[in-house]
């Protein structure tokens, strides 16, 4: 900087500014440090008593002080994977349609409307799920499934209403906008030359998409799916209102289940013994670690495809 341009007091302003923003930036890792520390301290009692076996044992008995989180982990994974099974074909179908096939003018508005689904609070999904979705499922769709596919253990047994399948369906609706939105971004990042080359070789529009565009964006799409998984794993309110809150592994999808997030919501304020409280914090810690790993994997995959593309004001 030429001396003539230096203004008096510049060093003070710069120092204050730099100090302020540095403090802000420091706050983030510090906050995370608190988070991990508090979770660890709270969980320590349970970790010491149950060890890693906590994750694979099934007894959850507050009376006897015995806790094992396997049905919770199973329920969390099953509900999320089922939700993906439903949401991924839908989301990808919509994303591909909106990037490759839809008329120009409706692309924006439709994407917008679907993304609005992401703004609906979880508890509102729960409310709608309990009073609208479950009665419909219980009266028509579940009995139909039991009548047609009842030879499979998946669709046997009494139909309660609140169940693993109900929770999976509401989760699917909740994660769909995320998968669709990120897939769409990823597909838009594919160079048009890919599609054009396939078309030039005589492919139909569908074949061009399937053989040239999607494989190019494959890791990004997988990233989008894993992002959806990450969201599904942590969902609390809608799940606890629809899943039946039963800490057991059942073969039937019509049976109630339980997830890690739901058990924390239900039992945390009333864990009457220290070991119960610690077991719940252990569950929270496990849930945290799982979502960290899943989200990190997702972002890595997405970054690889849409590298360098500005994401603008979108805070996903």
């Amino acid at each position, binding site marked *: 900087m030429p001396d003539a*341009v230096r*203004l008096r007091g*510049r060093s003070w302003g710069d120092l*204050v*500014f730099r100090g*302020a*923003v*540095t403090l*802000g*930036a420091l706050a*983030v*890792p510090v*906050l*995370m440090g608190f*988070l991990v520390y*508090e979770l660890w301290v*709270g969980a320590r009692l349970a970790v010491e008593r149950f060890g890693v076996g906590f994750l694979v044992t099934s007894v959850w008995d507050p009376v006897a002080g015995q806790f094992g989180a396997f049905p919770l982990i199973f329920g969390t994974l099953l509900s999320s994977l089922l939700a993906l099974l439903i949401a991924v074909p*839908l989301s990808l*179908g*919509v994303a591909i*349609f909106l990037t490759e096939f839809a008329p120009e003018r409706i692309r*924006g508005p*439709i994407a917008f*409307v*679907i*993304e*609005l689904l992401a*703004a*609906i*609070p*979880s*508890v*509102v*999904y729960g*409310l*709608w799920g*309990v*009073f609208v979705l479950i009665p419909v499922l219980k009266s028509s769709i579940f009995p139909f499934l039991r009548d047609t596919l009842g030879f499979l253990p998946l669709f046997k047994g009494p139909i309660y209403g609140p169940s693993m399948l109900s929770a999976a369906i509401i989760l699917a609706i909740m994660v769909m906008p995320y998968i669709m939105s990120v897939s769409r971004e990823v597909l838009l990042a594919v160079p048009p030359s890919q599609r054009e080359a396939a078309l030039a070789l005589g492919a*139909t529009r569908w*074949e061009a998409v399937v053989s040239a565009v999607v494989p190019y964006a494959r890791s990004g799409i997988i990233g989008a799916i894993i992002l959806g998984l990450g969201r599904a794993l942590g969902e*609390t*309110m809608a799940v606890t*209102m629809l899943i039946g809150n039963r800490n057991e592994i059942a073969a039937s999808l019509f049976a109630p289940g339980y997830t890690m997030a739901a058990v*924390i*919501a239900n039992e945390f*304020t009333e864990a009457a013994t220290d070991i119960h409280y610690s077991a*719940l914090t252990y569950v*929270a810690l496990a849930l*945290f670690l799982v*979502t*960290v790993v899943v*989200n*990190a994997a997702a*972002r890595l995959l997405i970054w690889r495809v849409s590298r360098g593309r500005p*994401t*603008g*004001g*979108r*805070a*996903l």
Partner: protein
Amino acid sequence: MNRQRLRRGISNLMVAAMGVAVVLAVLPLLLILGTLVVKGAGSINLDFFLKMPVPAGETGGGVANAVVGTLLIVGAACLIGIPIGMAAGIYCAEYQGSRLALITRFVADVLNGTPSIVVGVVAWTLIVARQKHFSGLAGSVALAMLMIPMVMRTTEELIKLVPNSLREAALALGYPRWRTSLAIVVRTTLPGIVTGVLLATARIAGETAPLLFTALGSQFMGTNLNQPMAALPLTVFTYATGPYEEWHRLAWATALVLIVVVLLLSVVARLATRQRFERRG
């Protein structure tokens, strides 16, 4: 030639299937909004906003305390979360390569994906257990923890978009570094940051899980953040899971109010972003 027709047929079939997918994807939103309007709109009147809740099982009453509670809790969360988020975002954009920026960016991404129930647990151990009482403030802290990474990322991305030539011009004109950053933030990116903030606010206004063990809830009007407080999402949850028809009626109405506010904020935010990008060409 038959093969060609088959392939084209498949192509058209798949396009049609995807069209069905779009309809199926749009359907839930319409159904949910429709149900909320049908079941909730009738209960929304002045009484609903101005009256306090009545004892369990009785009829009448409103959600005045929950409205005030949400405004206060979310307001406090914004007061905490926005400055920290923006400061962190500015740092990461201005000092991009530094170690702190890399760490902060990574941590913010992790925080973004953290389930809100886990954040609620942490806020309980950090504040409620230590203070030995529930409080709206603990709820605000939990919500702020959710808000900070969102605001940070938005701020950072927008500031990074500003071309360096603008910065260099300002510096060449003799602006000190700090004024350059602030002037750029104010003049060019503030609209985008505001929309990001609106989106983050909309997201935390609807959160229930972090408030379950922090704000706890209250039947009374509370203006003291250091006490348990009511909040709209808590009201929806308590009333929806209860047995009284009266509670269900209020739950629908409250959910409708909540969703209108959240959607309004989101729509305004996205429309503003869209316009801004379109103007830039």
